[in-house]
């Protein structure tokens, strides 16, 4: 071990490069040369890449130092400038500590198993190499996300993962439905990324760095108020009353930590399918099942929880943000659980159960129990992957006869498969027990119970800071979340065992089993998935005996089932066997200081376990009674008794339609308005209107060109007379001669001559003079005196014009009389001494309205 430590020093841990390079190489080779390598070559390449990466991550995990992290910096990516002008370098750097180490193990481990599984599942799919290229690319992106040393690297992985899920969901792009699902997933993720981008901007502004350790240490600077002006505080005096709310006098102040927390949570909601943005996950079932297993169960959707855990130092600073996370998690858990009750599509049930379990994880991190929340991620990865792969092998079996994807996933066509597919059945059952929370054995029990216990006893101390009012947690909120979690647990175990009994128990409803049935011979591939089987005879069809999936599919099932039992004991707090918790101790050391146990709940650890166990029993027994003994009769009765409610829940509370009507509809309408405005108003006014205007003036002027000589002559005469009139109009002007001003204070004004002009000089105090031919006029000035002389000129027709001259004689020195209107002599202007020092500039040039 020591040799390895010397080989890979902690600060320049090149093994991380290997972990990342292998899947990337795999993706590149499969993507570019896949067709030439053939199916076997592609399979080998993909599995080798993931296997190697897994081994390297196990090695890394072993080499993890107790404190600190293993880092490796590739190259300088960009460097941006912070608020105070300091440059913030953003490097392509990767670092691994206990948290990301565990995630790496999950990703590469479960990823490897799923690669093995899908090499069999997708065997006769024409896009085989393309599938594995995308899968490897996904693992590369997920590893970048987890191992990123700063938020920017995490964001690269974050969007890379979104990109790969777009490609994989829309894998069978022949079908419009799948491509649309892919697009929907990408866009909803993008809305989440918007939140993350704004969060990054806030962090750069307030903390001044994007590196996680920098954020952890500089988090205290987030304890200041962010002043949010909805539209900037322009002077709202002029606006009508009701607009005042848009331009408030006082800005909306929100704690920077809360703002960052909310924005980060928006990103996590987008990626981990929480309340506002969960709609893409159920549609993502359009992709192949292994994809759902890897992406929508084990790895991608948990990225949100990982991010919240990673930024725990920020979240802890604002109880409000934590409250939002916890409450949203609880609501999502309940909502998804209710929808899951009535779904007939097996994969949809599992999808909603994922959303619900994610809700639990967010409850965990929301109440400050980051280790517990993360542990649920860990266990959930195993049993949910096992459930999805189990479902996949069932669908694989059904698909042999019913080719239409929608009907081959419908539980109506399953039932009684426990006789034909024993391994799938047992692994599915174990996973069901794990997720439902079978005490002691099921790993779900330990993780979910830990979360509920921490929720029940949470008491968050607000970190006080000057001038900052913190929103405090009401004492009942922890308990409310606890009970919501328990009710969710009931639903969880009910719908899980409902799916188990409807799939594996009762009699087979798929088709009439005829052992001698042979495939009618048209060996079609899986290429165009999802098209209705054109030669489908309606009503009763015959088919072969459903067979168990081949070994490469069942091995992963068994391994995952084993883990879903074993993983529970990694953080079994009540029995104090919690190796993983100790490993995660240093990572959450800083944030756990703010979380205390509510007083008076010390002894309640075991008593509070009982409601959880009761919930498990209620759900399981209820499902057995309804679906095992009474063959689903009560469900049908419920459907008849409350048809509309049943319909509503089956239609997923019509949330999709709500979004389409409101958000999507609004954006669509805005787009229409803009398009029309662009065509008619912007283009219309600027281009077409001006053209029309010019055309109009053209036609008006054309009317004058009659072509007849006399008309032109008349026009000429008019022009001549006009010019003549202007020439003849009198213009009063005079030149001032002031040489003698200083000595004798005498100024001679001589008026400009003109045809038939008569002049009159009016000086204040001098009596009224008549119009005469006098063009000269002298004015006597005493020192320091100013006089206004007005020259009035009249011509033959009696029209007049006048001009006033202000003559000043300065008290002492020589000063030329200023002439009004003349251009100042071009000597350069005098500047105030020296220029304004540079540092005072910034506040000078703030546009009006800066707070």
């Amino acid at each position, binding site marked *: 071990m020591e040799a390895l430590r010397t080989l890979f020093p902690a600060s320049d841990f090149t093994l991380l490069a290997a972990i990342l390079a292998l899947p990337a190489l795999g993706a590149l080779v499969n993507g570019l040369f896949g067709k030439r390598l053939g199916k076997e070559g592609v399979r080998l390449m993909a599995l080798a890449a993931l296997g190697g990466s897994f081994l390297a991550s196990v090695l890394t995990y072993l080499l993890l130092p107790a404190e600190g992290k293993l880092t490796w910096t590739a190259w300088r990516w960009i460097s941006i400038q912070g608020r105070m002008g300091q440059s913030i370098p953003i490097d392509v750097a990767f670092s691994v500590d206990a948290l990301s180490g565990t995630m790496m193990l999950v990703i590469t481990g479960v990823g490897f198993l799923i690669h093995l599984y899908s090499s069999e599942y997708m065997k006769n799919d024409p896009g085989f190499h393309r599938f594995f290229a995308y899968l490897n690319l996904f693992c590369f992106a997920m590893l970048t996300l987890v191992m990123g040393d700063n938020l920017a690297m995490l964001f690269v992985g974050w969007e890379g993962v979104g990109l790969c899920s777009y490609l994989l969901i829309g894998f069978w792009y022949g079908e419009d439905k799948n491509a649309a699902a892919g697009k929907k997933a990408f866009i909803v993720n993008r809305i989440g990324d918007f939140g993350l981008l704004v969060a990054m901007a806030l962090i750069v502004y307030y903390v001044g760095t994007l590196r996680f350790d920098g954020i952890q240490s500089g988090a205290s600077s987030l304890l200041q108020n962010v002043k949010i002006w909805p539209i900037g505080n322009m002077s709202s005096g002029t606006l009508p009353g009701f607009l005042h709310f848009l331009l408030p006098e006082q800005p909306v102040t929100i704690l920077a930590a809360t703002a960052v927390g909310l924005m980060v949570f928006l990103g996590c909601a987008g990626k981990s399918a929480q309340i506002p943005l969960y709609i893409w996950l159920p549609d993502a079932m359009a992709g192949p099942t292994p994809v759902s297993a890897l992406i929508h169960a084990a790895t991608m959707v948990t990225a949100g929880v990982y991010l919240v855990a990673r930024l725990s130092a920020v979240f802890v600073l604002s109880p409000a943000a934590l409250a939002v996370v916890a409450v949203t998690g609880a609501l999502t858990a309940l909502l998804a659980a209710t929808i899951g009750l009535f779904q007939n599509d097996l994969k949809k049930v599992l999808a909603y159960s994922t959303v619900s379990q994610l809700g639990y994880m967010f409850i965990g991190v929301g109440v400050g129990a980051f280790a517990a929340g993360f542990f649920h991620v860990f266990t959930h990865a195993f049993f949910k992957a096992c459930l999805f792969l189990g479902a996949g092998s069932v669908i694989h079996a059904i698909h042999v006869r019913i080719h239409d994807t929608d009907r081959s996933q419908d539980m109506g066509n399953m039932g009684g498969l426990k006789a034909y597919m024993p391994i799938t059945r047992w692994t599915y059952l174990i996973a069901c027990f794990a997720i439902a929370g079978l005490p002691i054995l099921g790993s779900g029990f330990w993780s979910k119970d830990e979360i509920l216990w921490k929720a029940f006893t949470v008491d968050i101390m607000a970190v006080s800071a000057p001038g900052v009012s913190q929103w405090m947690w009401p004492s009942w909120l922890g308990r409310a979340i606890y009970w919501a979690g328990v009710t969710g647990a009931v639903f969880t175990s009910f719908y899980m065992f409902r799916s188990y009994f409807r799939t594996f128990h009762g009699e087979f409803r798929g088709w009439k089993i005829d052992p001698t049935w042979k495939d009618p011979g048209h060996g079609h591939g899986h290429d165009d998935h999802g098209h209705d089987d054109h030669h489908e005879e309606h009503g009763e069809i015959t088919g072969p005996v459903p067979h168990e999936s081949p070994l490469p599919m069942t091995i992963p099932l068994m391994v995952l089932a084993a883990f879903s039992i074993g993983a529970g004991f990694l953080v079994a707090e009540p029995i104090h066997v919690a190796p993983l918790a100790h490993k995660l101790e240093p990572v959450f050391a800083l944030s756990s200081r703010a979380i205390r146990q509510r007083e008076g709940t010390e002894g309640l650890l075991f008593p509070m376990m009982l409601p959880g166990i009761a919930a498990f029993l209620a759900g399981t027994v209820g499902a057995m009674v309804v679906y095992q003994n009474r063959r689903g009769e009560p469900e049908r009765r419920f459907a008849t008794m409350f048809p509309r409610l049943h319909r509503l829940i089956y239609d997923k509370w019509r949330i999709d339609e709500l979004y389409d009507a409101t958000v999507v509809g609004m954006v669509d309408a805005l787009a229409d308005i803009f398009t029309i405005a662009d065509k008619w108003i912007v283009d219309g006014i600027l281009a077409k209107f001006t053209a029309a205007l010019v055309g109009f003036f053209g036609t008006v002027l054309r009317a004058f060109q009659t072509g007849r000589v006399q008309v032109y002559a008349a026009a000429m005469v008019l022009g001549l007379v006009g010019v003549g009139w202007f020439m003849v109009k009198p213009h009063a002007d005079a030149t001032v001669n002031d040489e003698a001003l200083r000595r004798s204070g005498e100024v001679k004004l001589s008026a400009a001559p003109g045809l038939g002009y008569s002049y009159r000089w009016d000086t204040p105090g001098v009596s009224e003079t008549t119009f005469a031919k006098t063009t000269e006029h002298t004015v006597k000035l005493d020192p320091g005196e100013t006089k206004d002389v007005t020259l009035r000129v009249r011509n033959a027709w009696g029209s007049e014009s006048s001009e006033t001259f202000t003559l000043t004689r300065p008290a002492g020195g020589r000063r030329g009389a200023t002439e009004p209107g003349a251009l100042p002599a*071009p000597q350069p202007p005098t500047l105030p001494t020296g220029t304004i020092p540079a540092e005072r500039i910034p506040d000078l040039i703030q546009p009006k309205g800066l707070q």
Partner: protein
Amino acid sequence: MSPFDLVIKYWLALAAGIVAGILPRGEFPARRRVALGLITALTVLSVQWLWPVEGAAAEATADEWPHLLNVLIGMPILGAVGVLFIPRQMLSLVRGFTLVVLGVGFVVSLALLTVPMTPGWHFQFIKDWIPSLGIRWHVAVDGISLWLILLTTFIGPIAAYASFGSIKTQVKELCFCLLLLQGAMLGAFVALDLFLFFVFWELMLVPMYVMIGIWGGAEKIKAALKLFIYTMTGSMLMLAAMVYLAWTHQRLTGVWSFDYLALSQVVLSRPAQMMCFWAFSIAFFIKVPMWPVHTWLPDAHVQAPTGGSIILAAVMLKIGTYAYLRFSMGLFPGPASSLAANLAGVAILGGIIYGALVAWKQADVKRLVAYSSVAHLGFVMLGLFGVTPTGIQGAVLQMVNHGISTGALFLLVGVIYDRRHTRLISEFGGIAKVMPIYTALFVLVTFSSIGVPGTNGFVGEFMIIMGTFTSERLGTFAGIHTIGASAGVILAAVYMLSAVQRVFFGPLTHPKNKGLSDISPREMVAIAPLVLMIFVLGMFPSIFLDRMKDSVAMAYDQFKTVSGQAILFADEQQAKLLPADTFSPAFLKGAPGVKEEGEPEAPPEAGDEGVQGAAPTRRDGVLADRGGDR
């Protein structure tokens, strides 16, 4: 340096070349394979060669050959004249000649990278053109214009190569237009004399008008005319403001000069400053295009031929943004900084969000990509309005990114247009089955244009958003602007992906689409360099940023100090002259009349461009003293 050492030293480039060579499957002419391999190897080599080494500026600055820029501009223009003498029938010679001239232009422009871009002007060449008006042939490069020049010389050959594929009629005139356009654009990027810039700005318009007018689509004349009139009105305003500025400068200093360095010392009176700023900016906003005056772009793009469309989108729009950064912000920092918040609002609402939403509703692919350009350039302008070093660097980088990704998009749209002669999205559907490689390329370029990290689009947008938030010019609006800009990121995904889905995915219904052949070797070679640059820019942006950060820092500091002075000193009537010490000496090197420090005035310098020494008459000497002794 035996061949073996060569292999050791450049093994990566060699390997990349070989991989690219053997990449295409099936029948692929060897000539094209070699071309692909060569392009990839060259790209890897250039990345290794340009890798920013800390403290690179320290090593001896290579002497800058002063005539490099003249060669860079002159070659295409002389080539344009030369191509006229080639007989019309010898098509291959005409095409070959054009590609050679453009190719050599690119290689020559690589020489610009040999010199570390320290703050100040490089490769500066000054020669009196019209002495009586003080107009000089003053060309120079700095960090900001460096990458735009390289973008022009990089896109030029690609656009020519692509348009040769589709345009078969009047090839000689096409080559003439391409070469003249190339020369004019390069001239516009390097001109530091306002008059010279105006000449190139106008010269650039003529070949584009001709290209759209002759080889355009259905109503090509209308679109070409609209482009012409829009830009002309803009440049008319600019000319008026330019002349007023020069006249004021003459009135203040007694010497006629149109030089950017001289005019930037003039602080006009407050109303005049605002009017001149608007006059310059409207001309540039039309070119960018910004919201209210953008309607010429979709028409021009829809009617333009593929080659013309690529050049128009990739390079001509950048002149607007570059000129705003250089001239509007350079000459009138006062109004630029006081109007920053409102202009940024227009850039976001009118550019990013408006462009994205209208693009979503377009039925014609080219019109969609045109509106996406409006959105992307809205981002660029936001970076410029925010006036922070990060924002400006992000904006310049985004200009290069947009050039590459939109150039690639238009190239790919040209591919399907050549096959189906229609651009309506409804005509296509599910062609991914028939053209897999083409679909892969298109999806890749779409992700670059959306701004997915790892590709070039993201880096620029990320820096601009960070710049906007930390910008003090935007004051209280910084928050709402950042949110608006980030929302643009979502809308970009909406319209691009919905277009991709309607064109590529879904069932293959249209009978005519069934027979479409996949991307041809020629088109593959044309698109290869762009795709490679998408990844190079995405992964290693620091190569580009290191060479521009000094110039941007200098421009930013100067903007800050001068805008402070301008707002304080500009009173109502009087125009004033800032003393020369408010500008960094590196900036003023080459200003008219400013004698080189320490160089004897009288005898013209020997080696260095002697011409600069014999500056115009003795009177300007007074300019420098007069400013100083105040």
